[in-house]
């Protein structure tokens, strides 16, 4: 039996040694070196991203016609927002269905830019329809807001909760 065990141990040793030769190892230095290269490319890509973002804005939404609509939620907002529909001057501007992560981001204090588009200088009407759940009941609410577009980019914030009304507006 002892001889049998010795044979097995020797066999195992040879196998381990051989597999050690075959197996590829990943060293700490390799991981670190690769990580540094990944950080470099991230830096490059962030630079491209920033330039493209500015180019896109300049090209597609020049400031004299640009209007951006943002959505924020007040602290402790109970409404579980499912979707938001936005019209400008009676025409559909955007419709958004919220994912769980997006809702969490809003509830944590993030501000969503839901729409960026172009309108002429002058007076306009923004209409907002939200649907969601508050407790077990389904909630649908509408609100509208008049705004004037001038030469500068126009930013409008749709503030959810935080007052008597579910939908508020801020300039």
């Amino acid at each position, binding site marked *: 039996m002892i001889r049998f065990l010795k044979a097995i141990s020797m066999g195992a040793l040879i196998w381990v040694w051989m597999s050690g030769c075959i197996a590829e190892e990943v060293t700490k230095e390799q991981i670190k070196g690769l990580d540094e290269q990944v*950080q470099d490319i*991230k830096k490059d890509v962030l630079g491209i991203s920033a330039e493209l973002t500015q180019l896109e804005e300049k*090209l597609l939404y020049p400031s004299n016609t640009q209007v951006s609509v943002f959505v924020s939620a007040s*602290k402790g907002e109970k409404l579980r927002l499912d979707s938001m529909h936005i019209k400008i001057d009676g025409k559909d501007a955007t419709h958004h269905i919220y994912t769980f992560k997006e809702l969490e981001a809003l509830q944590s204090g993030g501000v969503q830019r839901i729409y960026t588009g172009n309108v002429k200088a002058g007076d306009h009407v923004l209409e907002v329809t939200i649907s969601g759940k508050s407790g077990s009941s389904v909630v649908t609410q509408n609100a509208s807001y008049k705004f004037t577009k001038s030469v500068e980019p126009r930013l409008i914030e749709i503030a959810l909760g935080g007052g008597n009304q579910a939908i508020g507006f801020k300039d």
Partner: protein
Amino acid sequence: MKLRWAEAIRQLASKTEDLMMRRFICLLGLCFSSFSFAADDSSHAAAKDLYLGEAFYYAYQGEYVDAITRLDTELGQFYRLDDPNLDPLHFQINYANFSVGDFELSYRMNQRAGRAIKAVMEGNVDQSIRNEAAYRLARIFVQKDDPRSALRTIDQIKGKVPDAVHDDELFLRAQIYMLTGKFEEAVNILEGMQGTKNFEGFSTYNLGIALIQNGQELKGYAQLDKAGQIQSDDEATLAIRDKANLLLGDRLIAAGKPEQAKVYLDRVRLTGPYSNKALLGSGWTDVALGKFDRALVPWSILIKRNVTDKAVQEALLGVPYAYAKLELHGKAALLYGSALESFTGELAKLDASIKSIREGKFLQALVRDELKQDRDWVVKLRELPESPETYYLLELMASNDFQEALHNYQDLDDLRKRLDDWDVSIDAYEDIIRLRSQYYEAILPDVDKQFRALDSQMRVRLEQRQALDDRLKHLLISPRPDFLETADERVTRESLRRLADQYKNDSSPAADNIRRRIKRLEGVMHWQIATTYSKRLTEAYKHLHQLDADVERLRNIYRSFVRSRQAATQSYKGYDDQLRQLKNRVRDAKEKVTTLIARQGHVLDVMAVNELDQRRKRLEEFQVQARFALSESYDRASKKQMEEGGAK
């Protein structure tokens, strides 16, 4: 066989020292992961600036490329403003600078993460803000695995630290002291942190470690004992409690005190992440005390758990070993048989997993979009068809190196997709510009011609308006009623003048009468105009103001046209170089990403295959042991049966 188990116990003991440091480092990671972003999001980050809020919106979703891009752009624009104090970001500029550092850190850009925070430290800010910046920068250095720089930075803190980061700063300082071998200083801080909310368990555990590292072993054990009894509902605190108990149990086994070790191992929850190791260790202590029947209690619980777990596989051999020691060789043989069966099945699974990884299915599974929506993505990964048995990779997945490599791979995949999209976007932009150029170049010459004609007309009208304005101003000083006649009055005066000319040389009595009447009428007219002069002048001013309103409207239209005209030119001119450069940069970046993703993927594959290979080897060793033990148990069972038969 007994020797083999004793050897295993010794191996376990020798590993404890290494494990202790590794676990401590893991613990550091655990603490940082829970505090790096939590400190900010706990207070519902109320961003006054919408663009800063937008950056947070992306950061909270883990979309760091978008978050950093938005915030970098916003900060760049802020610093280019002539009067930044008018920008809403001005109220939160330090917060924004700290946040960009946090985002970069979360995006694992350690090399770049400190730049914005350094700018705050070097700026003209209050000492408390500089202290917060130093704390954050030190935290980045720890993440960069550069404790010396972290120590230098944290030592720059002088005076009051903002309340929001006060405890975090202390805890970080203690960790830095531990990493730089200043255990006594770490002990002093951690002793003062006992009972600090949010650090329950963590501060006690780290105090225990610091004391042990400082050579005060008994005091360290006492602190670990304290950490092992902490009461809490918080899962992280309960995990650290289990960790303290497991560590103490391991240390006492290594010190040859199994009886004491069992007390700590039995404190570990049966459902926590350390429960399997604790159950295995608890069985070991019973074996060491010769209480084989007692060892069966934890091991019998353990063998009903997931067979891919290392501890469970070991217990599959442990249970029949204990039965054999209790002279129940038949039962032991049966259990060795089922262990063998189980190991064979697991080896087949491992082979299939290694094959699946080599076919690239592991990497494909790691970047599935649906996994990004789920926090428990590792569990989801296990449910995907044809993906390798990830349970075997769980331990590897928890390791820092693998996590780094995995995140880098996922980030690179994300960058690849973004770069592909941008490539398409740039093509689309080029198309837009080409179409705009075709459209505008065709119509703009005519538009410009019309505009020039209208522009000269407008100038004439504006000059006329100015002349009227000047004349009215002059009328205030030297009144000229005739200038304020109405058109009818002018016609009437002209008619009277013509009539006066007609009858100028007529000497008839009728003509005299007519001339008198003409004079009277001229006198009436003069009277009317002279007496209403002020009213007429006021009216004239009113009309001029009305005209001014129209002129203003005209000017607005003019300005709007000029802007639109400029915008028309700007919408297609001057983009060629920028787009060409961007296209080249995107192409270069894509090439780099393709190379890096292949290398990173290879590293992950190698790490995963090596891990599975090690598990395979371990299982094969167990298989050998089980086979040997099975035959031995059969021999003994048969011998016993024969002896019993002979006795009868």
